[in-house]
């Protein structure tokens, strides 16, 4: 079980390994946040605001005198898990609908394609803005918005993949055997699409992180007392002029997460030259 994984990792180019390391690092931080955070997430630990790094506060204090390191550890939990959840939902919905479109063909395909084309032409941030204004920001809503926004993109890619597969002999044979559509989709087609779909999942993950932190930066995303990496940048924006660690550190955190994920996708992308 572990051997093929090791083999894949060893086959990765250096940039891919760095990317994998960064992604695993952030997932571990997010998963272990309650264990590794040095202070309580809302505790005031320093009387000075925007204090520099010290042995006690590794990344200094934020605009209220809270520990920046703790804030980042907890913030990464929201960012990583929201984005991962939304990306998984987008890919699951997009791919299921795409396989339905490819298997049924005809009118079903036409209608689904038209619907997805409609959704894709609405700018994601604008859509999110209206949704947040209508329902008020909450974690569930952000998850739904992000999943919904990136479903059409995944639909396009997986429909193209599924269309190629549907024409192949083994799917035709399964059809002639009288297999149900569900069986054909799950057993015959999905295993042959899984590799490009994983790359697309990673790509959606990066998009969702960018969308969510952008929304949080505008004050529309994760609401206080909760925070994600984007809202950490926003709340410490007053430290910008002094170049405080409290604003640089969360910025670096977002960048390492998304750049790491992108490096990894670039390395495992089908057809990538190693």
């Amino acid at each position, binding site marked *: 079980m572990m051997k093929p994984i090791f083999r894949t990792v060893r086959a990765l180019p250096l940039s891919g390994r760095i990317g994998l390391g960064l992604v695993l690092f952030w997932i571990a931080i997010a998963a272990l946040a309650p264990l590794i955070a040095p202070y309580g997430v809302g505790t005031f630990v320093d009387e000075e605001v925007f204090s520099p790094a010290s042995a006690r506060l590794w990344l200094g204090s934020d605009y209220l005198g809270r520990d920046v390191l703790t804030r980042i550890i907890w913030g990464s939990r929201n960012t990583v898990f929201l984005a991962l959840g939304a990306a998984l939902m987008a890919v699951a919905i997009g791919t299921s609908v795409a396989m339905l479109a490819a298997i049924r063909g005809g009118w079903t395909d036409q209608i689904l394609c038209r619907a997805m084309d409609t959704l894709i032409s609405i700018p994601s941030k604008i859509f999110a803005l209206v949704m947040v204004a209508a329902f008020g920001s909450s974690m569930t809503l952000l998850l739904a918005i992000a999943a919904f926004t990136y479903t059409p993109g995944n639909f396009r890619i997986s429909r193209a993949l599924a269309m190629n597969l549907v024409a192949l002999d083994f799917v035709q044979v399964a059809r002639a055997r009288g297999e149900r559509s569900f069986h054909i989709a799950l057993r015959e087609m999905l295993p042959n699409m899984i590799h490009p779909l994983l790359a697309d999942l990673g790509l959606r993950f990066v998009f969702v992180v*960018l969308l969510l932190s952008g929304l949080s930066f505008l004050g529309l995303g994760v609401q206080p007392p909760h925070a994600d990496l984007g809202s950490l940048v926003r709340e410490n924006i007053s430290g910008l002029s002094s170049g405080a660690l409290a604003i640089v550190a969360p910025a670096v955190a977002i960048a390492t997460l998304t750049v790491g994920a992108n490096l990894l996708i670039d390395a495992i992308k089908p057809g990538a030259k190693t």
Partner: protein
Amino acid sequence: MAAAVSRRSPLASLLPLIAKRAASAVLTLFLVSMVVFAISALLPGDAAQESLGQSATPEQIAALRHEMGLDRPGYVRYAEWLTDMLSGDPGQSYVANQPVADIISQRLPNTLMLASVTAVLSVFAALAIGISSAINRGSRLDRALNIVTLSLVAIPEFLVATLGVLVFSVKLLLLPSIALVSEDATWSETLRSMALPVFSLGCIVVAQMARMIRAAVADQLDRSYVEMARLKGVPFSCIITFHVMPNALGPIINAVALSLSYLMGGALIVETIFNFPGLASLMVNAVTSRDIPLLQSCAMIFCATYLVLMLVADVVAILANPRLRA
């Protein structure tokens, strides 16, 4: 001679193909208008409540709602809105009490200026980066550019913008951190205040485009006709200009259109950071003040731009690819 004769008739046979593509864009725009109308109906509160304020009694609100026709079923209001939009009248703004068309015509030039300056600069930069890294595939230059564009694609634009402000406005005191666009500003003032917004928007757009252009050109370079031309002894620059580029034109135009569509609605964050008086920040105001007609018009402009850009890209791809003409 034969080529000249056969060139004219396929062009005529192209028209139905282009007409079909345009018809599908119009259909999508129609569907988009339904979605936009439905989404804007989700916003709590309506014009009647907004204009009467908090102290109004439910009876007063109901009366005004009846007077404004807001109590009619949704499809009737949609039909009315659509016919108004088609006749070029997007309605009256609830908040500013002036026609939506007037408000938009104040902001639209700013957005178009920001978008076109960014577009021109970034298309050239992206073409240069994309083509040079595709030609030198696997070289150190290609790998370095790959890492740079990869990182730029993954960095949120508010980071680029805030870092830009930190470096150019706070530390170096070179550029203003707020984009002041007014009619009496001189050209150099306008350019200076637009430098940072253009830079922030351009970073992500250039990186996206350059990656797609590199992929398109690299894909063509792998084809056997390139090998054939090389074996014939055609100079490499000729292969790129006359053999590869015409074939890569379709995907390149597609990449450019996709990235440019981002400059309209995607400029939301950059416009907010720099206080740029563009269409996206107008739409933010429309959402927060529940100005539904303004919101709907802005949303339709963004969606229509996307669809038009995609249509243009597809038409150019059809024109550039002789095989699609059959």
